[in-house]
Structures are given as structure tokens and as C-alpha cells.
């Protein structure tokens, strides 16, 4: 197994290879997509709480990411960069969409979304949707994407202390919402 195989290379090297010839760029992109696609999609889906919107943003994120890679740009943290693009697109989507609770949305809240989903996860998803956007996004970045507080501060363009507070409050809020149910799950 060669050390130059895409899966052996760090993100920064793969990002650099996106500027190369098509085959090289394709291999590098496939590897980066495999590494980070899941967390980007999780961010889009759980932040927007709308599957179709999340799909649109998710696709656009990777296309813009590839376009950015063609420019001369230093890259130190690919997942954070991807999530920044995704966040900007999510915020645009949020801004463009008139936030109204439609009948279908209401049904989504009261109906189980998928049979294999655990009951606690169902409750967490619902509770997450009830959080304010600024709490929800830091919670998703922390719990779904595994970013450190500093990385989250970079992605959401905020101070570290502000991020710490928002994460803490988001967790507390979710715990409050889930409190009637959570004890039986934690036993």
C-alpha cells in the first residue's frame, strides 16, 4: 500500500491535490468526501431540520468547496472550512425562508420519523428543533461534528467564551425539554 494513496494523506494534502489533473482531483475529492460528508450532512440536516433544504445545502457545500479549492488558498482545517461553507448556506436558506409552522411540519413533530430511530433519539431530534438557531448550531457542531470549542468559535465567527456559554445553555435547554422522559432512559 503506497503512502501516496489518498486515504493515507492528510486533509491539507488532499485539498492541495484538488487543483491537480482530473484523475488526481477526483481521487482526492472522493477521499475528502468520504471523510467529511457525514458530518457536513449531519450539520445541515439537524440545523435546518428539513431534509429537502438540507440536501440542497449539502450538495451546494461540496460544489463550492471544490470551487474554492481551485483558488490559491491555504488550508489548515478542512472540516471546519466545509462547515463554514455549510453554515453560510444554511443561514442564507434560513433567511430566505419565511419561517412558518406549516401543517406538514407540525405532523413531522408529532409523528415518528423512522421506525428504527430510538425513542430517545427521536426526543432529542425534536428537542433540538425547538432550540433557537444560535444554540442549535453550536450544539450540532459540538455533538454531531465533534468540533472543539475553539473550532466552533472559528466556524460561527464568535468568541470562545460566547461559544462555551451557548453550548452549555443549549445542553441545559435540551435536558430541560427532555427531563420528563430522560430519567427512564438514563436508568
Amino acid at each position: 500500500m503506497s503512502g501516496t494513496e489518498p486515504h493515507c494523506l492528510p486533509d491539507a494534502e488532499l485539498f492541495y491535490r484538488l487543483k491537480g489533473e482530473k484523475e488526481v482531483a477526483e481521487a482526492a475529492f472522493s477521499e475528502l468526501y468520504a471523510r467529511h460528508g457525514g458530518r457536513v450532512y449531519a450539520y445541515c440536516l439537524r440545523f435546518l431540520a428539513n431534509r429537502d433544504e438540507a440536501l440542497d445545502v449539502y450538495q451546494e457545500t461540496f460544489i463550492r468547496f471544490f470551487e474554492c479549492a481551485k483558488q490559491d488558498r491555504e488550508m489548515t482545517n478542512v472540516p471546519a472550512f466545509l462547515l463554514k461553507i455549510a453554515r453560510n448556506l444554511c443561514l442564507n436558506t434560513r433567511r430566505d425562508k419565511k419561517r412558518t409552522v406549516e401543517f406538514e411540519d407540525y405532523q413531522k413533530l408529532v409523528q415518528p420519523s423512522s421506525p428504527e430511530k430510538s425513542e430517545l433519539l427521536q426526543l432529542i431530534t425534536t428537542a433540538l428543533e425547538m432550540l433557537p438557531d444560535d444554540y442549535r448550531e453550536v450544539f450540532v457542531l459540538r455533538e454531531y461534528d465533534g468540533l472543539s470549542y475553539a473550532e466552533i468559535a472559528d466556524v460561527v465567527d464568535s468568541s470562545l467564551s460566547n461559544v462555551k456559554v451557548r453550548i452549555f445553555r443549549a445542553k441545559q435547554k435540551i435536558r430541560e425539554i427532555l427531563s420528563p422522559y430522560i430519567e427512564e432512559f438514563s436508568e
Partner: protein
Amino acid sequence: MSTHNDSMDARMLHAFLDGELDGSHEELLFHKLSDSSALRAEMQQQLAIRTSIQRDTEAFTPPAVATSAIFAALGFSLPPLATMQAATHASSGGMAGGFAAGSSGMRRLLFSIGSGMLAIIAAVLLYMQFPFGQSTDSAISERVISGPPTTIEIHEIPALGDLPVAAAAPVHTANPRALTEEAVPVQISFHKRNTAVRPHPVEALAANGVRIDPSEVRAGQIQFFDLIPAPDGITLYARNAALRSDPSPAVVSQSDPWFRNMNLGLMYTLSDYHAIGIEVGQESFPQTFRGIEGGEDVWYEQNPLAYWATAVYQFNGDALLPHVHPFAQAQFGGAARLGPLARATVGLKFRPFERIAILAGLEGSMLLYRFQDTWFHTDKIGLTWGVAYAF
């Protein structure tokens, strides 16, 4: 004061669980945890939440339709394995995914129908331009083969049959074209018309080296095109197909070229009935297969666009109707990077004039592919149509 302390303890706890608590505070937190059952309960609850989130496969699995769209937009081929889980999401994926897959399928269908229509229109236009099949005296007499004219006058039965030397002898030649263009320049005019259709055209017999028995030849039974030499044996054809596959595609193919499902073939005629050749083409093959990855039983689905090549054997039957022949075709070969491929086709050829045939038929195919020492297959069935030109 107690609430403030509780809040500070909870902050420490959360920071610890997030890996953000510095070492100097860890000992203090552990001490608090040993003293406070409420803090321990909160830790358990936070861990329970985290564990549940890590099991949120729906969120961590990008739908295959999105992956396909991204790679297609960038002009890349799809990564080799997309999980069935993703494909399942794609199939239940709401309007966006459904429309993406639907519009692609519709485009392919329209292209297939359109290309078939164009082929038919082209053939009809050619037919109108050169009304070969009209058996009028004037139409026939216009087709004069170059060379010093030697007129054969056919007046009554068995006039032509009594021309064993002048007309039949050159048929023995190995090159039938020489018969009419050089060896025996002939201008034929018929004074007596007979519309009976011969079951085996003369030129086909000649191409096989079959000697024509003069006693079988009857005045007026030879149509003009009977004396046109057979092609040198090479036929080029292009055809398209609309095939339904099993398994049906749940993921969109990685690319959608305008020449999707176009096949090109080159045949060499061995005899009236038999021909062999090669055919190349490309089409997408939806594949599903099981395997083991990371110790888990997984189900894969992909829909790669593959280029294939096969050897072809074709059997051509006697005319069922004027200019309409049945044919059956078997092909064996392989699809690049996928596996062996077999195809079978039965259909009809309509030959409105000598060199051009329109073909339509029913086609079935089977692609075999191997994964982790197990064979899987994709079957397809559908319609095919195209145009053939004989040189």
C-alpha cells in the same frame, strides 16, 4: 449561592465531557461528582444523550442521490460503493431526490425514443428518395449496370431458363460483384411481368457459391434486385435500447452522456442465415450485492456507467413478409471493470431497400459480477431498435 455553585459544577462537567476541562479542575470535578448524586445523574443523562446522537445514522449518512448529484455536477464518477442504507434513503428521499432520479430517467427515455424516431424518419426519407421496391418497368429499366450493353430479352417461359451460359455461368465466380459490374455487363428489360416473390434471391445464392439451376429460373420471376450483387459481407449497424433492469436502479448513474445506450456493431455475413461480428456500447448497470465490511454484513448498491464489448452471432430467417426477416442474435463479452456480459435479441429486420435495414426487437441481457468470492448478476429486458447499413 447553591444554584450558582450547581451551575459552575455543571459547566465543569460539560467541559470535562467535551474534553475542554483543564487538568487543574479535573480533580475538583471528581470530588464534586463523588459528593453530588445530582451531578452524577446529570453526567449519566448527558452521556445518554451523546450515545443516542452517535447512533443517529440518518443524520450521518448522506443520501446517495445527493452524492450522485455532487459527483455528477463536478464531472466525477461515483465512488465505487454506496451503501444500500444510503440508497434506501434516496428512494424515500422526498421530492428533491425523486425528481432528480425521475427527470434523468425521463430524459433517457425521451432520448431513446427520439433516436429511434430519427432512424425511422431517415429510413423513410431514403425510401421515398429511392423507391426501390416499386416493380414498374420504368423503375427497373433505369437501373442500368455500366459496360457494353448486352440485352437479354425475356419473352416467354422458359426463355430465361434457357440462358444457361450468358446469365448463369458468371454466378460461379467467387466474387458476385464481378458478375454484374465487369464480367457480364447486363442490361435487362422485362417484357413480361410476374410479381411472384422468390424465396431465395439470386445474389444470396451466388454469394454462397450455390449454382443456380436454370430449371428453377422462370421468366419474370427474377426481380431487378435479385441481380444486384450481395454486399461484400460487412454490415455496420447502430442501435439503441430501452431496458428495464432487475435490480432496478435506486441510485442515479454517475454520468449521463448523450450517447447513452447507443450500440455500434460490425457484422460479417457468412451465409444467408449466419453472420458473426462484434458490438460495442455503453449503458449503466444497476448493481446490488452483499458483502462484509468491518465485520458487518452490508448491502451495496451502485449504478455505474460501463463500456462493454461482445462477440456477436446472428441468425437470419427467411422472409416472413416482403422485405421483412426475423433474426435472432446472441452476444458474449464483458463490461469493462464489471464482469462478463451476455445478451440475446430476437426481432425483425425491415429492408425497404438493398443496403439499409431497420431493425427492432426484444433484448435481454445478463451482467455477472463478483464481490468477495460471490457472484451476483444484473438482468435487463426491453426493446431495441436501430439501423443497419450493408456495404
